[in-house]
């Protein structure tokens, strides 16, 4: 057993597709760790992830990893049309990219239950070992982890304990893959409403005393046990802008990304928008 040379251990980061967001994240999504993106539905988690798997194919000189990605989705169907749309935008902004169709470098797998995910980890390992082509697999996205656990488990102590140990098993497996192959793992999570007066539900984890989305206090799903399993947590939220536009068109939704906790990032937040071309900071 030899200690690792720290100077030779710099963490690679993967760009998320927008220089403002990259700067907010001090370079992008880090490899060798699990980053969790928590948000209410329709806030932009999937958009973020789809953009990430495309931009991971850029060479390191442009902030990417020259890598292909594995997209594990638990909600069906997979947003293929949106991926194609983003891929067209990607190709028009990077015409010299060597891959003809960036969607070719995105491997998609649907998973229905938590046990299936646990079983999938050794298969992913085999895939990683054999993926030594020009674009090795270096990004794994799980969208979303919450869907696997929301229905199969009752609220009894035994089931919660079983659920808890599954969290650590999955996280342990993913972190081991992340370390051995230098993979960036991104996991998305949903939120649960925080009911006033029930103090037991919300344990403050991170920089914000309370998370708000769409004006309601929310708390990330899966509880304290899962919060211990991830390395960094980013919170996406949306707030309705009070006034409607003068000509009566729809209210603008302001979207915000906040660092809840991360070992390398200070507490900060930034606005972002979602357009047809993708997710961009403001």
């Amino acid at each position, binding site marked *: 057993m030899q200690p690792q040379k720290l100077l030779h251990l710099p963490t690679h980061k993967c760009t998320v597709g927008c220089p403002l967001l990259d700067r907010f994240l001090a370079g992008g999504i880090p490899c060798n760790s699990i980053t969790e993106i928590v948000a209410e539905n329709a806030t932009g988690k999937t958009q973020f992830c789809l953009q990430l798997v495309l931009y991971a194919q850029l060479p390191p000189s442009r902030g990417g990893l020259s890598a292909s990605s594995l997209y594990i989705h638990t909600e069906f169907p997979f947003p293929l049309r949106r991926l194609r749309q983003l891929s067209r935008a990607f190709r028009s902004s990077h015409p010299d990219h060597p891959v003809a169709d960036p969607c070719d470098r995105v491997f998609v797998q649907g998973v229905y239950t938590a046990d299936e995910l646990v079983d999938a980890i050794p298969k992913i390992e085999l895939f990683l070992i054999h993926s030594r082509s020009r674009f090795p697999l270096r990004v794994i996205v799980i969208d979303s982890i919450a869907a696997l656990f929301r229905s199969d488990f009752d609220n009894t102590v035994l089931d919660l304990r*079983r659920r808890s140990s599954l969290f*650590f098993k999955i996280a342990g497996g993913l972190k081991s893959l*992340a370390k051995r192959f230098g993979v960036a793992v991104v996991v998305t999570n949903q939120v649960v409403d925080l009911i006033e007066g029930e103090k037991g539900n919300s344990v*403050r984890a991170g920089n914000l005393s309370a998370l708000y989305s769409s004006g309601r206090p929310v708390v990330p799903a899966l509880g304290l046990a899962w919060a211990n399993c991830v390395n960094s947590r980013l919170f996406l939220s949306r707030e309705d802008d009070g006034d409607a536009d003068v000509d009566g068109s729809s209210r603008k939704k302001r979207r915000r990304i906040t660092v*809840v*906790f991360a*070992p*390398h990032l200070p507490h900060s937040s930034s606005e972002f928008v979602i357009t047809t071309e993708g997710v961009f900071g403001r």
Partner: protein
Amino acid sequence: MEVGMLPISASKRGKLLAAGYTTLHSISRASPSHLATDIGVSEDEACEILKYASQTSALDPSIGSSNASTLEGGQTAWTMLNEEKFATRITTSCADLDNILGGGITCKEVTELGGVPGIGKTQIGIQLAVNVQIPPEYGGLGGKAIYIDTEGSFMVERVLQIAEACIEDMSEYSHHFHNTVQDCEVKLHPNGILENIFYFRVCSYTEQIALVNYLDKFIEEHKDVKIIILDSVTFHFRQDFDDMALRTRLLSEMALKLMKLARKFCLAVVLLNQVTTKYIEGSYQLTLALGDSWSHSCTNRIVLFWNGDERHAYIDKSPSLKSASAAYSVTTRGIRNSNSSCKRIKMV
């Protein structure tokens, strides 16, 4: 027989025994001329025997001293008190936290720090790994650190940030106290600080246990290690163990080994732990993970928690420190005092 350990001929040995010299102590007390006349050998040979006797007793300290205690390692409480007064401590860079800890993290003891995600456990771990390297001229130990990472939260860029801030603080300190430019130069460089942190990454509980077993040999070869940080001790043990008794056994063995390392090499052991909820007295409360039996395994226990918008540390268990809590903050430069205006240290 002690005399039997001497590398001399059998006849000389027989003469020594016949003359009544049975212990090395008795031989070394005699002068060469007395020894020569007593056993009937020349003075040169007697000098040789004395030389062998002093060499052998130097190698094995239990021989030759009639004042040795019957149980090895027994000490009087008075010696222990004197040792404790001069026990070295590692600063956390936060004055309030140092105050409630009696100066900092104590060497020769196992300290456990636990808290919710995002409270700053890894940050404190990294700060200690840098602070242990502060040279003695600036009040530190000038030692090296072992950082065992089980979760992958260790980011080299963050260590560089904290290391640079530490060096800047040191040169500012020396500017205040030294006049000449030569005195002001701080000899440390951020890359040098990185080189003095021995970083291990473990991916399963078996690797973790194997590494802790290996540390004894490793520290024998690197005697200037003064702190071991385990971040976090819990992660690999929260998976399903079919046999919980096995888990308890493994954890207590590991804790025992770490305690032995702390005492043997006079270093500090810092264990970072997670929190879980436990059903106590009708409600769910936060407690440190790994259960009740683990709570006995460390010398000091510090709980980190949020109080409003501030991070606080509370001494939960310690044989020598008063129960108190203090506020700290995590900044880009590392762990520092918190900026609140209210009274910071609270005695409980």
